[in-house]
């Protein structure tokens, strides 16, 4: 029961954020950048401004909605890059074995040793701030778990009957990996990807908070928090709402990922029942 509830809550949160991001242009009552009005800065939440206004008099609610676009874009695309890298490396390493396996294994260990936020920060220092750099920095630094899972699943699949049969039938290596192995490891890869999206949203917020991610005036939850930090005494709402948005989004993806894992894992299912 609890499991189902968590999964549903996760799904609801994620759907809300996705809707917010897609419909931002229609729903947002104000322009997130242009509607600055110093006369109405630091106003508390009201009917006019549901989440109040920030230090430059911009509507926090509108900026949170537009910020969802940045967060989701970074989360989804960077995790997609991670999944593709991790799966290709992991499956090929498990399938071919030998020196390639050793190399991929070594690389994975190195990647695990460098904390992904530190690595991403270093890459951002080289590429400079902005959306494309964020996608590269976060897309290249968080594939090690996917790679490990893909590799170990491939190792256990490769000696099973249906893979051997495909081999005997004369399928090429690439073809076998694509048609026989890949569909069978998608479950765990999807679970890690869902959890990874939450992680990427957090990292984007952290990098933008540190001033190396999305640069103002373009709204991102991270740089909104960074601006609001100075106003925490007089306008705490400018900090509370973007943070809540990050929290709700990451929580949504985490609950979704946990729920997916429980559903896909037959071992967990029997134990819970």
């Amino acid at each position, binding site marked *: 029961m609890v499991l189902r509830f968590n999964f549903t809550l996760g799904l609801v949160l994620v759907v809300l954020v996705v809707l917010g991001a897609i419909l931002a242009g229609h729903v947002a009552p104000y322009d997130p950048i242009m509607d600055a009005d110093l006369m109405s800065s630091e106003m508390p939440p009201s009917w006019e401004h549901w989440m109040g206004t920030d230090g430059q008099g911009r509507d926090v609610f509108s900026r949170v909605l537009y910020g969802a676009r940045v967060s989701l874009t970074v989360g989804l695309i960077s995790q997609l890059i991670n999944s593709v890298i991790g799966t290709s490396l992991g499956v090929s390493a498990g399938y071919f074995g030998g020196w390639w396996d050793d190399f991929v294994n070594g690389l994975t260990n190195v990647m695990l040793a460098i904390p992904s936020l530190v690595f991403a920060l*270093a890459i951002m220092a080289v590429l400079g701030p902005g959306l494309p750099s964020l996608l590269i920095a976060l897309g290249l630094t968080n594939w090690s778990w996917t790679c490990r899972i893909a590799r170990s699943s491939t190792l256990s699949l490769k000696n099973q009957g249906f893979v051997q049969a495909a081999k005997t039938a004369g399928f090429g290596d690439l073809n076998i990996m694509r048609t026989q192995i890949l569909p069978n490891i998608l479950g765990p890869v999807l679970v890690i990807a869902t959890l990874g999206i939450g992680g990427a949203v957090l990292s984007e917020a952290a990098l933008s908070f540190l001033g190396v991610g999305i640069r103002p005036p373009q709204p991102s939850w991270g740089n909104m928090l960074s601006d609001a930090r100075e106003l925490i005494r007089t306008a705490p709402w400018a900090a509370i709402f973007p943070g809540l948005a990050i929290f709700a989004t990451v929580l949504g993806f985490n609950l979704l990922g946990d729920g997916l894992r429980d559903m896909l894992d037959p071992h967990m299912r029997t134990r819970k029942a």
Partner: protein
Amino acid sequence: MMRFILRRTLQMIPTMLAVVLIIFVIFSVVPGSFITSLMSEGRNATNAQVLTHLNEQFGLDQPLLVRLWNYLWGLAHFDLGISYRTREPVWNVIEPRLWPSIKLALCAMGFAAVVGIPLGFLAALKPGSVFDSGTMVVAVSGLSLPEFWFGLLLMYVFALNLGWLPSFGYQPGSIRHIILPAIALGVSPMALLARTTRAGVLDVMNADFVRTARAKGLAEPRLVRSHVARNVLVLILTTMGLQIGALMGQAIVVEKLFSWPGIGSLLVDSVSVRDIPVVQGAVLVIVLWFLVINMLVDITYALIDPRIKVG
């Protein structure tokens, strides 16, 4: 045992070398060096002669491979290079930052253990209860919480409104300064520990030897103490060790938020002025801390659990 420790130590070397190589390569493709960013800011180093001089001084006029070789040669002699900004040896810049960072990581872990372990334990003793569900909600929330936002809220409530604690800064030996950053940083390991402890206890509770002990009529408190706790301890210690290893890297945003003079804030500050030698040094220290702690965990593991084969 000595052979195991030696082998485990030697295993770190290739990983460390690979990290050095990756970091070095990333930073040698930097478009625009520290010197060009100095020039664009219109500070000293405006004429070509000074530029050449600086390039020579930092060895930037040499080919990439020569620079890599020089860097590795320096590292082999525990020399991390010279900071572009302060012109001091990088180690002198990093060294005073080490202890604050380690202290923060340990205090955060202390908070995580004191709160997380009992939560996980109590939750597992009554699986499916309201307390259990509540604990798991706290755990998954703790893992989703942006720690810099949580830190900002703590600052707002406990420092600015209630005035109980200082809002930021560092004083050697001051406990009051470390409380808020340690809690902000400790929330996610706390959540992880609660989860791990709960899963571990549940696993052991369903094990055959516990069922046997219970069937023999062992009282529940004694059962929990002598059979369950002892077996879960290894799992908890491992999780804690690995978390401490990762905390120095996770701390960068919290350190920056609370103006904590650790490795993390040094890294962020050096990134913004492109003080590459210091950035490289700070990353290496963070990775080394992670690897050493992992090694210690492995060795402790082999010491306390006789089932692990050493050889």
